[in-house]
């Protein structure tokens, strides 16, 4: 095995254990913290695939923003301080949904590589090249996504605004 594969095994093991603890943790804040570990490990996998930019986007957006908003929301609303348990009693359904998603993803990924053993060849892509292709080749999808996000943003503002007349 190459050094990359050893690194992948370590990252995958830690990520999987954290993901398992994430769904079995009885405390929502602990669950959110395990989510940080899982997402960071996914970032690590991008890093060993030499996709530096994607890896640090993963850290900036998921770890640095989304999980922090999760934690913020949880602490602002109902996270018990200390060691109290919290459970929504929906493990059966969650297990079914999880297994379904796993089966779907395994099928899709294997299908994409024609059910053969995919060869991994990390190619180093500079950020400049990434920007070029994003803003030349894929500029229309990029703008479409931006527009969608802008619509979501405005929607959130409209929903959270207090009605001035009443």
């Amino acid at each position, binding site marked *: 095995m190459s050094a990359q594969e050893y690194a992948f095994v370590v990252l995958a093991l830690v990520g999987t254990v954290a993901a398992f603890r994430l769904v079995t943790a009885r405390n929502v804040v602990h669950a959110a913290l395990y989510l940080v570990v899982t997402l960071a490990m996914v970032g690590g996998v991008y890093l060993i695939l030499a996709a530096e930019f994607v890896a640090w986007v993963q850290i900036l957006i998921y770890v640095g923003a989304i999980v922090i908003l999760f934690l913020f929301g949880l602490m602002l609303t109902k996270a018990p*301080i200390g060691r109290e348990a919290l459970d929504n009693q929906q493990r059966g359904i969650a297990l079914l949904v999880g297994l379904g998603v796993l089966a779907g993803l395994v099928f899709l990924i294997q299908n994409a590589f024609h059910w053969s053993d995919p060869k991994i060849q990390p190619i180093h892509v500079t950020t400049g090249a990434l920007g070029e292709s994003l803003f030349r080749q894929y500029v229309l999808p990029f703008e479409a996504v931006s527009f969608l996000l802008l619509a979501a943003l405005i929607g959130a503002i409209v929903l959270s605004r207090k009605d001035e007349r009443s």
Partner: protein
Amino acid sequence: MISAVPGVSVFDDWFANFWVVLVVKAAAVLVFFLVAPLLVGYMEHKVLAHMQARLGPMYAGRFHGWAQLVADGAKFIQKEDVIPAAADRWVFSLAPAVALIPYIVLFVVVPFSNTIYAENLDIGIFFVMAIGSVNVIGVLMAGWSSANKFSLIGALRAAAQLIAYELPLVLAAASVVMQAGTLSLIGITEAQDRYWFVLTQPIGFLIFMVASLAELTRPPFDMPIADSEIIFGAYTEYTGLKFAFFLLTEYGGIVALSSIASILFLGGYRGFLGIPDPLWMAAKIGALSFVVIWLRATYPRLREDQLQRFSWLALIPLALLQILVVGFVKVAVG
């Protein structure tokens, strides 16, 4: 002694073996991180004291109390490590490390000359922003796990503030990146060979400094640790070495954001008068750190709602305008 090959790290030049280089780089970054924040901490003691017409530390180490922070460190080590009975032990103990480590890792990409640096990442400034944003998780962990209302309020204030000021920080950095045409910190420094970017983007520089102060929760943006309102915010329950870690995080953060600001706007290690590059870099970091301390002695604390308004209604629109202007000029000139 120092390699003359620009663009090659001295550490790569001196040693051949990959693992040796790795260990030496890690050690160099760690040593710098352990020394520079102590200097800034000592500067804070002395500068604040003189601004308030008193002497500050004078005894430790005989000469003007230079060893005060070493003595403080020895004191923190001796103190009892108290964990509140209701606290979440694991999260409580991990929080200082989660808060501290991002600022150590950040120095991996900070260049002190075109040969003295650990790594010249292609995405330098982006790496800095990504790693810097992890620090908030440590503060949130500390506040929640302490099982103390004041800690929790402090952590929530910190998170709201850091989310609000992350945006102007990133936008101000982005407009510099647009002008320099590169994300690499060495690239940005070299792009300022004729003039510093503070001359073309003075508003961006101000936005970046203000947002940095808020990111560091330094006065006048220190609501998360407002001692007269919520004791010491997220750090209220911490004692001994763990508390010292949070203090180190604060001073390390000052050094980190001062170095990033000097690279983005003040030409980084580039200087004139024939003074060596690392000295220029150190001087710029020192000068910006001094400003950070100076502001603490000058301004009173903002109120929580004023702080949020200031970011969303003043800094972010200004930063967006800056980006727009830089974009127009870039297209018109280039």
